[in-house]
């Protein structure tokens, strides 16, 4: 009995020593990247990661003049796994910046791991409304958009077009709730029903049957990733497209959805803060390099990953590599003096962006590929968010 115990303990002890991490070197930037890289919605995390790594590569493997080490790990679409990964990044790898998470629920579960160390978290995607307002944090920066934004733009678009009745559908998590709240804030027509599905749900037969019974003029759904692919395929298969018009935020119509659904996407309208055809120099370079490196067109998620890397680059450069001076780095992150692929970039006092939003349509480009084309003038300009007044940071 005793022998067994000692043997086991020695084995355990030896194993622990085997997993010694590398000694941390100074004079480099360590970035922890935790995202959804597997499962039906992996395309989103993969795009953010690929674009982030492309930016670093185009910078000669550096960020802000310092050699960059990007440690990537998969949250497997599970909040508990993300939490573990965050803990490792913060406590074991002692990263300077943490980024990557796609989904709001996963990020909210894992983010508390950064509280003790005060590690900066730059979100390349999820930006829940509570963190824009009451729960705003000095170390949290939303690089993409506030969660509500695309949906507010869509609501405005639906109002402008005079659609009388709308049926709303979103997954039952923070971003889903933010999405429909955002849509309703700007949509002046009648909301026939507001339905929340299970996050990750893939079979929408029941929900589609209910939509058919309700007969709304438009159907607005926020279903990112694999959920969206399945929903749109089933929507088209059910024949509902003839009775009800589908409007989606950019998440529901970008390249990942187009790849999954196919030709049925032609003619769908969506809203976004970015499009491949935005005419600024940074964007032209980004789109060309991304396609060259990865042999596919970038999604809005990729544009966000790229922007996050460029923001870190600018902040580190402005801080002269002085990463231990957190206040200096924070100030430079706030100033965000970098050339964003979306055009002008500005943070609000709550560290959420103020920017334009556009309406896009899925059309065929010159090579016959399905792409999103920006239609007309921005539907919202210099738009912030509805929660900034609740934030204590000024």
């Amino acid at each position, binding site marked *: 009995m005793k022998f067994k115990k000692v043997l086991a303990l020695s084995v355990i002890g030896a194993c622990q020593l085997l997993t010694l991490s590398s000694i941390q070197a100074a004079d480099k930037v360590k970035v922890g990247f935790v995202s959804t890289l597997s499962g039906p919605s992996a395309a989103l995390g993969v795009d953010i990661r690929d674009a982030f790594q492309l930016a670093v590569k185009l910078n000669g493997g550096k960020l802000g003049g310092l050699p960059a080490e990007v440690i990537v790990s998969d949250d497997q679409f599970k909040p508990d796994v993300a939490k573990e990964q965050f803990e490792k990044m913060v406590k074991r790898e002692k990263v300077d910046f943490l980024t990557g998470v796609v989904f709001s629920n996963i990020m909210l579960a894992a983010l508390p791991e950064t509280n003790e160390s005060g590690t900066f978290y730059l979100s390349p995607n999820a930006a829940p409304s509570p963190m824009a307002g009451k729960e705003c944090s000095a170390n949290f920066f939303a690089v993409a958009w506030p969660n509500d934004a695309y949906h507010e733009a869509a609501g405005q678009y639906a109002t402008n077009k005079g659609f009388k009745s709308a049926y709303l559908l979103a997954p039952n998590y923070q971003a889903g709730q933010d999405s429909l709240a955002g849509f309703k804030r700007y949509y002046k027509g009648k909301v026939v029903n507001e339905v929340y599905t299970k996050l990750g749900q893939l079979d929408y*037969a029941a929900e589609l049957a209910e939509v*058919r019974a309700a007969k709304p003029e438009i159907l607005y759904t926020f279903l990112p990733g694999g959920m969206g692919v399945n929903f749109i*395929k089933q929507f088209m298969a059910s*024949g509902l497209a003839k009775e009800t018009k589908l409007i989606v935020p950019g998440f529901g119509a970008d390249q990942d959805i187009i790849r999954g659904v196919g030709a049925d996407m032609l003619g769908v309208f969506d809203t976004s803060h970015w499009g491949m055809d935005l005419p600024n120099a940074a964007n032209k370079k980004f789109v060309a390099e991304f396609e060259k490196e990865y042999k596919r067109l970038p999604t809005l998620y990729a544009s966000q990953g790229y922007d996050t890397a460029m923001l870190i680059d600018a902040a580190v450069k402005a801080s002269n590599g002085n990463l231990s001076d957190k206040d200096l780095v924070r100030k430079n992150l706030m100033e965000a003096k970098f050339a964003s692929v979306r055009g002008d970039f500005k943070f609000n006092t709550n560290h959420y962006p103020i920017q334009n939003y556009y309406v896009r349509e899925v059309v065929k480009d010159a090579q016959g590929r399905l792409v999103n084309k920006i239609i007309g003038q921005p539907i919202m300009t210099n738009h912030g968010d509805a929660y900034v007044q609740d934030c204590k940071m000024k």
Partner: protein
Amino acid sequence: MTGILILEQALNGLQFGLMLFLLASGLTLVFGIMDMINLAHGALYMIGAFLTAWIVQFTQSFFLSVFLAVILTSLFGMLLEKTLLKTLYARDHMSQVLATFALILILNESVKMIWGTDLPLSAPDYLSGPVEIMPGLMYSSYRLVIIATGLLIALLLYLLVSQTKMGAWVRAGASNRSMAMAMGININALFTSVFGLGAALCAVAGAMLSPLLAVQVGMGENILILAFVVIVIGGIGSVWGAFVGSILVGCVDTMGRSLLPFLFREFLPPQWASAAGPAVASILVYVLMAVVLFIKPQGLFNQRS
């Protein structure tokens, strides 16, 4: 809430129930005849789905791929039975549970290593549109094909079990194994064939359901538990019990999920109603099992003597 809606949901329940039946029938036969709890049954369902999604890249034909995947899965199942599972027949239930749990871990990771965590699979294009089965009721043609397939296989299974010699052996083995052996039935060959049949049925369900759900690692775990509930309700060893149980569970689960939120929305905010609906539906399934066990402790159509 209209009659059309309820009817559509009833059809969805039937569709899900029939696929559940494919899993449950194999499971109940294995449990009934070999007295073995096989948690890895869900993994066979997953393997069937992955094989179909993989083969379709070469054949470009959905149903041909399903056919090939079913054969391959069945062969794999029989191989598994002859090498590993055989040794578990004599062991106690806990060892079977743990060994097949280990098997799930191994199979899940093996699939991940070969194909990654998920593969895309779409229904064939000619089935991607709806069919008007009744005035005002448009239903997905692919789902109709699933229902038809399920009913056809149920009929074939019934004929097999009740009309053929092999079926008689199966029923004898389920009822009293030692007696069946004493009567000279080649029990080893029978076990292997039954397992192979169960694996084939799993593969059909996995392949057919994949365009609706997703081909992903771990897809077997959730449906496996429901299959166990079904066979407990239906009675271990009874294919007819598995059929009745599957339809019951399929309908309670599907209709509960879709219709309960309507009820809850009357007095709960939409986020709560949407969360409570599916949860209560799932709980109802287990309550159903508890009630059946209370009235008939051996299940509705128990075969064991």
